[in-house]
Structures are given as C-alpha cells and as structure tokens.
C-alpha cells in the first residue's frame, strides 16, 4: 500500500496496461471467431457452430489446442532469430496499442486523474509509425531464420511489399494532419468534434476521402491481409514466412496480425472518422443510438428464441436477448454516459472497419506479385502525392 501512495503514476499505468492487455487478448480471440463467421456467411457456410452456443467457445478451444501442440524447432534453423521473430511480432503489435486513446474522459483511479490511453504523447502518430515500422523485422527474421525456401521467399516478398506500401501510407496520413494541424491523437479527435461534416474524411476545404481510401489500401498491405497477403500466399508458398512455426509461436504471428488490424483500424478511426465523436450532436439525440441498437439486437434475439432449429438455442437466444437489453439499459444511466458513449462510438467505427477487413477477405482474390508492386509505385504513390499537394494548397489558400 505504501508503494501505491509513493508511485501513483506507475501503479495506475500498470493497472491500465493489465486491463488493456486483458481486453485486447479477449478481443483478438473473438476477432478470429468473428472473421470465421463473416467469411462463412459470405461463402454460404455455418462457420464455427458446435463449440459452445454458435461457436462462441471456439477461440477458447483454439487457444487450448495451440498451448498443447508440440513446439517443433526444425534442426537447421538459426535458433536466436527463430525464437525472437514471433516474440518480436507480438510485442511490437501490442506496444502500438499503448498510444491509442479510446475516449476523451479523464477518470479518477486511486485519486489520480488519468486519461483513457496508456501513454499520452504529443507526437503519438509519429511514434506509432516508428514502432510499427520495426514490426517488419519479425516477418523478415522469421522467413530468413527458418532456413527453408518458402519462408525465405515469403520474407523477401514481405520486406519489399512493406517498404513500398509505407510510402503511400505515410502520405495518406500527412494530408489529414494538414487539416487538423496536430500530431497528438487526442487533439486530432478534438479538432474533428461536432458531427460527421467535421470529420476529416468529409471536412473542408478538401475532404480527405481519397486519403482515407489510400490509407485503407496501404493498411491492408501493411498488415499482410487479403488481397495483399503475398508473403503467405498459400497456393504458392504453402504458408509463407511462418511455414516452419508451430504451436504458440505460430499463434503469436496470428495474434500479431489481428492486433495490427485493430491498430490500423483505430488509426483510421482517429485520423479520418472523428475518433470517439458521435456522427451528429447529442442535442439531436445521438446518445440514444447505442440504446436503440442494443435494444433492437435484444428484441431480435428474443424473437428468434421463440422458435429455433436446435433445442439448446431455446436457452441461448433468450439469454443473449436479455444481455443485450441489459446493455441497452446501461447506456441510459446518466453517470456512465459521459465515458461510455465515446467508447461506444470508437468501438463501433473501429468494428465497422474491422468488418470491412473481413468482408474484403471474403470477396477479393489475391493480387499477382508484379501487379502488387506496380499498383503501389505507379498508381497509389502518385495519387497520394497529388492528394497531399492539393490538400496543402487548399489549406494554405483558405487559412
């Protein structure tokens, strides 16, 4: 207790890190479930269905499976780099999350006013860039240290791809910064307050809709997602850079990929979509939107619970319905609205972008390698440059 009173900042930071880690790890696990469900729906399948109600315990089963699989280290690998790579991937992916604010409110923990972000920085955006630019070594080292041809090709491809797509990505980020005129992620959102027409994606003098699209395309490439998942193209490279990995080491790469998806989605939310601000002011009733959504979800679940195909759904659907209705009720409580509403909008926007990731995975085929490189250098990069130029000129003209 003495330690707590002596180092309040340290203790509060540790508490925040613990909470964030728990929430993010759970979110990562359920993101895999969500992705499998979304892709299954697109492909007219059921997806995970039997482990728990609607496959909801599938991530847990997967985690247990990963833990108990044999951890194979192939004999000819470079041991240090081989072990370092998955650790590096996950560590860097999680570190970037420390800089992302999820709400405007300051809450009191142990008498210490603290913001809803682990580490506040005035140059958070640049730091985010710096940390995530290190992440590429995980893929490269994994590919090289495995000492086998497919991982090496995967590592080569990914280093070329990530360097190339980092250029349009940073140019796309630079343009909205000209509008907001700050590098702090918190202040960036503050400049976008007041409704959807103040968000950077629609804001004058030059709406950043092009930047937004370029950012999303480049972000797909940076996170090695379909249609840019050339480093792990199954039909060419078996599984690319992580062929030789098994058990928790493989799971680390998997988790890092999902964590990076969360990071870029929340970056897009903060930069272009107004962060945690509501699409229209609270005076016009935007604070009843979450209540409405959750209540609707609850009613739909209850309705489906009346007549179900499987016997156990007669129990699970009403339970979910009641849970959703309870959440809707929580949003009506005035004392939690102050920090719960921004949190809802932030999660909703980030979730919508994450859904787009999965939607596109289920829709688009993979690029060919030369198409991939030609696309970024001959199209994306010049367009991003032009966009930045026009934005700069218009901002200078109107200010």
């Amino acid at each position, binding site marked *: 207790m003495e330690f707590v009173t002596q180092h309040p900042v340290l203790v509060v930071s540790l508490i925040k890190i613990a909470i964030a880690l728990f929430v993010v790890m759970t979110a990562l696990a359920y993101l895999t479930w969500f992705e499998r469900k979304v892709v299954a729906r697109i492909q007219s399948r059921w997806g995970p269905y039997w482990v728990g109600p609607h496959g909801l315990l599938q991530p847990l089963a997967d985690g247990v499976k990963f833990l108990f699989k044999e951890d194979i280290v192939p004999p000819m690998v*470079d041991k240090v*780099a081989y072990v370092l790579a998955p650790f590096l991937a996950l560590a860097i992916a999680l570190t970037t999350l420390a800089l992302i604010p999820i709400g405007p409110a300051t809450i009191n923990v142990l008498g210490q006013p603290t913001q809803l972000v682990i580490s506040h*920085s*005035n*140059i958070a955006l*640049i*730091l985010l*860039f*710096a*940390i995530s*630019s*290190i992440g*590429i*070594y995980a893929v*490269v*080292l994994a*590919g*090289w240290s495995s000492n086998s041809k497919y991982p*090496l090709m995967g*590592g*080569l491809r990914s*280093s*070329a791809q*990530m*360097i190339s797509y*980092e250029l349009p990505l940073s140019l796309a980020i630079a343009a909205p910064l000209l509008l907001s005129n700050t*590098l702090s992620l918190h202040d960036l959102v503050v400049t976008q307050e007041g409704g959807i027409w103040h968000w950077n994606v629609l804001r004058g003098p030059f709406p950043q809709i092009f930047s937004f699209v370029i950012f999303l395309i480049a972000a797909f490439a940076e996170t090695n997602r379909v249609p840019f998942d050339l480093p792990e193209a199954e039909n060419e490279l078996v599984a690319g850079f992580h062929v030789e990995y098994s058990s928790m080491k493989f799971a680390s790469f998997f988790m890092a990929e999902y964590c990076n998806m969360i990071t870029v989605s929340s970056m897009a939310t903060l930069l272009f979509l107004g962060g945690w601000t509501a699409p229209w002011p609270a005076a016009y009733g935007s604070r009843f939107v979450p209540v409405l959504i959750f209540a609707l979800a609850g009613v739909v679940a209850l309705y489906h619970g009346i007549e179900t195909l499987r016997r156990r759904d007669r129990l699970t659907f009403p339970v979910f319905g009641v849970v959703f209705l309870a959440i809707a009720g929580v949003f009506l409580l005035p004392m939690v609205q102050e920090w719960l509403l921004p949190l809802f909008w932030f999660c909703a926007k980030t979730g919508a972008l994450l859904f787009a990731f999965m939607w596109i995975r289920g829709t688009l085929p993979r690029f060919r390698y030369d198409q991939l490189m030609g696309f970024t250098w001959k199209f994306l990069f010049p367009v991003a440059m032009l966009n930045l130029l026009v934005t700069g000129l218009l901002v200078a003209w109107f200010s």
Partner: protein
Amino acid sequence: MDVILFLVFAIIAVVCAINVVVQAHPISSAVSLVGVMGSLAVLYLLLGAEFLAAAQVIVYAGAVMVLFVFVIMLLNAGAESRKGHSLMVQVLAVPLLVTLLGLLAYIVQRIYRSDTTVHFGGFTHGTPQDVGRALFTGYLLPFEVTSILILIAILGAIVLARKEID
C-alpha cells in the same frame, strides 16, 4: 531514472555495435545494427529530441536497414569464413585499439570542457514544429542542397545499375 535508462541503452548500443563486427553472418550483423539504431533513438529521446528519435527509428531502423536485410536475403549471402590472422595483426591489434580509444577520449575531453554539461531532457526544441521551422528558415539552403545531393546519388545508382544490365 534517466541515468539508469541512459546506462542500459548505452550498454545495449555498444554491445550491439561490437556484435555487428563480431558476427559472421551478414543478417546477424544487420540486425545488431538495428539494435544500435534503436538504442541511439532512445538516447535522443532521453535528451529531449523526440522528433529526432522517432525519425531515427522510422528512417534508419524502419527503412534503410530493411533494405539492407532485403538485399542480403536477395543475394543469399552466406556466413563469411574466418581465416587465420597474420602475426602482425594479432600482436598489434589490441595496443593500437587502446591507443585509438585513448586518443579519442583525450580529444573529446579537450573539445568539450566540463562546463558544458548535458542535462537529460534539458533540450526543449525537439518538437516537430521546431524541427520543421528550423529546416525552412535557418537551414533552408543546406536542406535543399542535401535533397539535390540525394537525387544525384539516385541518378548515379541508376546509371551504374543500367550499365550492369546492358
């Protein structure tokens, strides 16, 4: 706290720098160099040059060294073989190294007298705004000239590479 961080990252930087030379495989050397760049960035950050620290990581660790590693992997360079050193190298290496380090320490001490002490975080002009303003006012000419220099270097690289292909 600052002193502890400084010592930790200074030691990491030096160990990684030695590792760059000692390692037999080029990839291991390159990765050690990344370690040097990263710990240098932390040292910049400790001194208060936050933008420089971030730029150091983005440019050197994130772009330049990735290209290095990429080329090493592309050429599939193997570990270099160690040959026995000649007698003169074995005898003279350590004394010469000690002399060089001693000379360097002496010169540094002569140039920077004890009245110019460095404070952690004492430098407060390291924000992106300050760096940008400095680049476009006081250092505009060097900045532009450097960019032209880089352009010339790129052109030179293209000319050299084309000759190889023809």
